């Protein structure tokens, strides 16, 4: 669905953000794009949406070069950016103006998402809080039914109840022919939704595995004494004891701890990557 080959890109000369980056994403998955601040998550998402162009290499989405922004490509992709602007119009007016660009737009679904999010229908967009605007945009994005849906930090600014609502609407939106890419720092908000993990660091994709493969190969557990465990790949100590990652030698089915995995890969990349290769 998304095929990025040898992508190099920099905002400033001699300061490359991406260097020969490779990434392939398939339909039917929810990808979680993780990376430190400034690693280039948003930039990568903008490349996919055709808002930035590669210096070298290619970024192909559904067979189209994203940078060419052909109409047939644009009607099948939607990006929810972290910072956005909504015009001073009502929701109805907004939908009437923008929905026609998306042939599979589902108006009924749009209003049911708004209802789920508790958004009044007759307000001006500019009179809403940041969180409410974001919910309108997320509802619109889901209702477009595009094959590719990209969201940059979607749970930022959402209050506690709407995070649960967000998970419900996303769970309902997944299908075999859709590819959803979500960048996030709040992995705990979404860790039961994301089924594949992509980690970007040091100009490259350093990790890309589905959650099932990760838990087949690694075990995540909390132990009181770390000395009793063998083959510890990474440990984080807290009041409850030590949360650790070990190689999954038996047929254990532990729950993935994405924060722990992220920290482990950033600090102790080599031995973990060897397990997956």
């Amino acid at each position, binding site marked *: 669905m998304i095929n990025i080959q040898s992508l190099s890109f920099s905002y400033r000369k001699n300061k490359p953000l991406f260097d020969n980056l490779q990434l392939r994403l398939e339909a039917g998955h929810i990808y979680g794009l993780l990376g430190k601040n400034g690693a280039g998550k948003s930039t990568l998402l903008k490349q996919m949406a055709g808002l930035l162009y590669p210096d070298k290499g290619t970024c192909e989405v559904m067979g189209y070069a994203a940078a060419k922004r052909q109409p047939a490509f644009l009607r099948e992709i939607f990006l929810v950016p972290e910072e956005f602007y909504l015009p001073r119009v009502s929701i109805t007016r907004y939908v009437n103006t923008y929905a026609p660009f998306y042939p599979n737009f589902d108006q009924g679904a749009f209003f049911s998402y708004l209802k789920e999010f508790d958004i009044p229908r007759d307000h001006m967009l500019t009179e809403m809080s940041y969180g409410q605007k974001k919910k309108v945009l997320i509802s619109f994005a889901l209702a477009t039914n595009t094959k590719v849906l990209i969201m940059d930090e979607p749970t930022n600014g959402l209050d506690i109840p709407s995070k649960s609502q967000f998970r419900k609407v996303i*769970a309902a939106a997944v299908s075999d022919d859709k590819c959803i890419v979500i960048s996030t720092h709040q992995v705990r908000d979404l860790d039961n939704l994301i089924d594949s993990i992509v980690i970007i660091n040091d100009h490259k994709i350093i990790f890309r595995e589905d959650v099932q493969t990760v838990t087949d190969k690694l075990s995540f557990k909390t132990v009181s004494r770390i000395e009793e465990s063998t083959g510890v790949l990474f440990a984080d100590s807290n009041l409850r004891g030590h949360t650790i990652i070990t190689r999954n030698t038996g047929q254990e089915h532990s729950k993935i701890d994405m924060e722990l995995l992220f920290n482990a890969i950033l600090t102790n990349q080599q031995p973990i990557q060897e397990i997956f290769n």
Partner: protein
Amino acid sequence: MEFKDTQAIYVQIADYICEQVLLSKWQTEERLPSVRELAVLLEVNPNTVMRTCELLQQQEIIYNKRGIGYFISADAVKKIKQYKKEAFITNELPSFFRSMYLLDLDLDELKPHFEKFKKSNFN
């Protein structure tokens, strides 16, 4: 539903479904909510629910009617007990036995405790 951090989500969902059946909230031969409905209800990826269904189907706790969905098997209760028994023996017994061994406890010594427990909790 609150998920624990200790076990894979798809296994926890399987336990949840088994519990609904054991508590007779869901009857045998009844249709299970669809994969999508369960995913929305539990706020998880539908692929995770699919994996749960594969597991439960393997254990013959549910079965698939093509094009209609998953149904709870007629002998689901029996199958669940079998499945949970196996899980108990492989997952929980080893650490229990380890403590017994370390404390020099004998199985016979535990028997009166077990009888007392049954009496006070399930009588």
